[in-house]
């Protein structure tokens, strides 16, 4: 998958644990973990907006395109 999720990097920058993020955006810790590892097919705009609001960042800070070549 050429889309890389940098959620773990942003969490480290904000010194926030996955558990706290999960509680604040209203999804399960397991889903946050799946999101961090990139083992999801997609992310809802609604979830993305909540993460951006909590981590005070832009979608581009969380998602990155890496060319497969």
């Amino acid at each position: 998958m050429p889309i890389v999720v940098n959620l773990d990097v942003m969490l480290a920058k904000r010194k926030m644990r996955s558990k706290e993020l999960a509680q604040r955006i209203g999804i399960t810790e397991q889903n946050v973990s799946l999101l961090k590892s990139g083992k999801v097919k997609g992310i809802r705009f609604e979830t993305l907006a909540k993460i951006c609001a909590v981590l005070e960042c832009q979608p581009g800070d969380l998602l990155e395109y890496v060319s497969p070549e």
Partner: protein
Amino acid sequence: MSYLFIHAGRWLAPFAQFLAVLFLLANLLFWVMPEWAEYAARSFSGLPASTPLTLTTGTKFLGGGLSTLYLGTLAYALFTISEIFRVFAAGNCLSSGVGARLHRFGLALILFGASTPVVRALMTIIVTIQNAEGERMLIIAFSGNDFVIMLVGMLMVMLGYAFREAAAIAEENRQIV
């Protein structure tokens, strides 16, 4: 999934299995009991009471075998819907297994509906073959019910396909956070 579906699925699954076994056992019993065999022969062949039947051990064996094969299709369909009810009882209605089972149920119904005229024709031959010359019969008849059963079967096959598509979409949706 609603509680009603789960609750109904729990008791409909064994009920469908019970019906399947009951059909097969009752059919065998009808052919084995001398006073009931004629009723079974007339039911499957559609011959009126005025037509004479000659039921020997051989014709009863053939008639019983043919009707068991015929009802076996229905029993298979009932066992398949029993499996569907069991999946519903587990609260997992949008699984690809339901679609595959609906597909199989539909195919069984199509086979059951399509085989009815054939079974009717063969049964008339079996139960009248021992009659005197001139009293042997062959009935080729199509009833509206046979076509309705086949149409419902086709609908079930299509619903099975739609269910599998829906299950795939639901699975994909589960992987979106």
